[in-house]
């Protein structure tokens, strides 16, 4: 059964992950409050914080780090398609029209 997977590798320190997630949320709100007039560093910082939090949830809570590589490939391919979708939409706005 798949729960044997968790027993084969050492279970992650879920509380440590929780503290990271909670801490990053506090940092995010502080970052947004302090830099609300400075758009570029605001967006870059918040995207990085959100990305790290999402990775922590995906890798440790969803156990993607301990699953087979096949699953990681399936999820990664979906994310790549998502990035392409959003990039095309933004390119439509930013690139000059012919």
């Amino acid at each position, binding site marked *: *059964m*798949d*729960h044997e997977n*968790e*027993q084969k590798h050492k*279970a992650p320190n*879920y*509380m440590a*992950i*929780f503290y990271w*997630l*909670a801490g990053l*949320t506090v940092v*995010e*709100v502080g*970052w*947004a409050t302090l830099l*609300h007039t400075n758009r570029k560093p*605001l*967006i870059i910082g*918040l*995207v990085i*914080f*959100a990305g790290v*939090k*999402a990775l922590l*949830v*995906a890798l*440790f*809570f*969803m156990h993607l780090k301990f*699953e*087979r590589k*096949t*699953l990681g490939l*399936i*999820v990664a391919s*979906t*994310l790549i*398609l*998502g990035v392409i*979708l*959003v990039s095309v*939409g*933004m390119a*439509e*706005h*930013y690139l000059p029209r012919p």
Partner: protein
Amino acid sequence: MSSVAIAEHHHVEPPSSTGIAHDKMGMWVFLCSEVMFFTGLIGSYIVLRFASPLWPQPSTVLNIPLTAMNTFILICSSVTMVQALSSANRGDLAKMKLFLSLTLLFGAIFISIQGVEYWKLLHEHTTHYPNGFNPHASLFGSVFFTTTGFHGFHVFCGVVCMAYMTGKAFLGKLTKEHHQGIETLGLYWHFVDLVWIVLFTIIYLI
């Protein structure tokens, strides 16, 4: 003992070509489709936001401290969910029931707070939105309620499933040997949390 009883007692998982349990694989495939669903919503928000010069600063319309607390509550629910699975794997059924109940409670609190937030936004009259902030008021209102509304609906469905799973746990139907449903539901629950992490950042903070 009859052959049927023997078969039920010694339940054997059908072999999987991927090495991953069938229901877990099914949930992952479903979550991949949900990634595309939310990418469409979030991507639309991003494109519309950057194309619109009159988009208000979210902090002037939305209650950031309340939503930050709600984000924290959803993160807590993810922790209790993963602890429920870990407890089930160890055979600690009492802790499994406790953590499942806490996850259900946190999920219900999240939905309630979001409901309060919606009610306040719809009924409070501000300088920007004298008739209340609603989907008709502006493009921001329309996109905000659509995106967070769909996420809230996903959380609601998760809460309903969580109530069913918690009920099963208290009826003694989940054991150390048979609790795959917790992991499968947990994947959905963590996904819903992950989407909120992205939504909170993009809609409320940027």
